């Protein structure tokens, strides 16, 4: 009897935790799935809206048009609201990005982290980056990937932690909440290098185009400055091929005031 008891304890102590672990997929599998499900291979034009809110101080709305060319991962975005920002924009191809400032009529050849149009949005936020190229699974003290099964509201999710492979990211550490059934990324938290929570993002609405997912409504909560929230909406999406002339400085200057 005693032997049986010892055997059961061993099973419980060794095998069961491993079984629970085995139920969760590998973090890289999830990252690859996310990369794949959002890898929309088409040109696209869309209207974007940022609605910023600060606690007790009302809201401010920014609107603009975003053009993206798939073949060389170029994009052009131009603000249409508020009137004071109308015409400011960003043009990007490869490693090169230009910020057009209407006030000074300058195309500034910039690094990707430059703020745009007075918002907290960085030009690099609009780039298409693969998670598997920029992040890797975070490991615990035992060398195991940090991933657990949990719930977000009523939705079963995996909560996983990833760390940046290089400095070319906004957050060196992130925690993701992804749906267990299809790995859709619902929530993420970004941390600074020292481990301070900086941002919580929720992907609230998605659409599917050509079998790929696109986030069309998100909410960003600034955890560093409590009370600041930004709601991002993408609407009026077109997947028609975009003319070559759109991705030129001359076109952006012509769109501007």
């Amino acid at each position: 009897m005693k032997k049986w008891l010892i055997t059961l304890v061993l099973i419980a102590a060794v095998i069961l935790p491993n079984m629970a672990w085995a139920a969760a997929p590998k973090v890289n599998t999830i990252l690859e799935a996310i990369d794949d499900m959002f890898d929309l291979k088409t040109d696209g034009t869309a209207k974007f809206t940022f609605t910023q809110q600060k606690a007790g101080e009302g809201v401010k709305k920014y609107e603009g048009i975003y053009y993206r060319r798939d073949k060389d991962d170029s994009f052009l975005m131009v603000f249409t609201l508020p009137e004071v920002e109308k015409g400011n924009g960003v043009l990007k191809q490869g490693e090169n990005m230009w910020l057009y400032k209407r006030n000074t009529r300058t195309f500034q050849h910039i690094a990707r982290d430059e703020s745009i149009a007075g918002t907290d949005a960085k030009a690099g936020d609009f780039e298409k980056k693969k998670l598997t190229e920029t992040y890797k699974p975070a490991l615990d003290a035992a060398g195991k990937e940090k991933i657990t099964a949990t719930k977000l509201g009523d939705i079963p999710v995996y909560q996983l932690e990833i760390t940046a492979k290089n400095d070319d990211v906004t957050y060196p550490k992130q925690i993701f909440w992804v749906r267990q059934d299809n790995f859709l990324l619902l929530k993420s938290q970004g941390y600074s290098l020292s481990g301070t929570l900086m941002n919580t993002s929720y992907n609230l609405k998605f659409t599917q185009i050509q079998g790929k997912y696109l986030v069309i409504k998100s909410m960003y909560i600034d955890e560093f400055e409590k009370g600041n929230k930004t709601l991002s909406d993408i609407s009026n999406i077109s997947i028609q091929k975009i003319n070559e002339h759109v991705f030129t400085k001359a076109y952006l200057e012509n769109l501007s005031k």
Partner: protein
Amino acid sequence: MNTVPVLAEDTTDEDQLFSEDMIVSEDQIVDDTTGDELKQKHIGFSGTINSSTAYTRFDPVYDLTELGGAEADQITSQTSADIFVDIRLQNWIKGFLSLGVNYYPQGVDELNTITLTDPALIAELNTDTLLVTNKKYNDILIKEFFIDANWKNKVYFRTGKQLLKWGTGYFWNPTDLINIDRKSFLDMARVREGVSGTKITIPSGIKQNTYFFIDMNDTTKLSDISLAGKYEFLVKNTEMSFSIWAKNGYHPVYGFDISGNIFTLDYHGEIGLANDERYNALNYDTLGIKPKTGEMISQVSFGLSKSFDYGEVKDRINVTGEFFYNQAGYDKDIIGRIASESNPETKKTAQGLYLANYQPYSNSKYYAAFFGAINKFIVSDMTFSMNGLINLVDNSAVLTTGIAYNPALTDIVINFNINSYLGAQNTEATMMGKRWDVNVGAQISF
């Protein structure tokens, strides 16, 4: 899609956030008319209004121009507006007007150069130009006024008064021979006055652009027109351009500029090469205008920019440094030389010639400047800035330190700046007689 209720929540209820169906069908969101709003007929008004008051500590002893008066304490205020009218027609034809309106309650002295034509007067005064001052209380200036059109999005035309970007320098642009209104070190964001002409842009994708500018400023006949051309191209992450400027009766001026990034540094540089016919400099010994020799003169600017993370905030501190070399510039303390001239007539003439040809912070041979900003300074809506510029020949400097407070979600910016003019008497930064000044102002955007 109702967005406001979600934002209005002070706390986030994840049950509520994810309780609805989160997939929106493709037919509800796809719309092939996106972007058409940019092509619609539209008239838009926008602009800024600035109001500022400055207290200036003035020292007449330092005032080389002798225009600043005798008062040690001076209060000046100014209210300015930049009004923009944006008119869009169909087929990408548009018009734009930028109007600057200034009001000076105390009045300001306007310095004008009068060209003398009477030979007897020229002989008597020993100069053919005179500097005179008028007091003005307001002015209205058309800063830009142009029409845009294009041919099949292959060739773009902009004709009228316009501000051109020519060169990559942050403060110094030696290749820019087109714009007349130069950047102001103390107000780098100022909307500048454009020049009249026609710009033609021929893009070849993102990587190459060819520009031409037909400069009609102050032209009354065909031979007054000057032409400029620029070919801009991209090599990996480095953008470069070659430019040329030509005008009847003058030697051409050549330019080259470059910008890019290496590691985490952004860099920019430009070089202009021009015949010395373009420069009027005084001979240090005689204080007369140096004779032209036909020598090619180079002017070079080069700068580096970098952002630093601080206190958990990415890119919180931004720093740009820039250096300027002017081969035709003074390599000795010319202002001190003028001030120490014993012959009163020679001194007065030299003062006039120097000021008539003066380009702020460009006349000496070597300069350096830095521009620093700390975002989210003390509170999230405040920016601290400190900019400095030094004349490395006479060792004078101007230093401006300030804060700008832009309450979140508002279109108002409150500014407070202290400017210091450092250096010995009769040096570039101190020659206007200002020792320091304090500026308080506000700007609203609409």
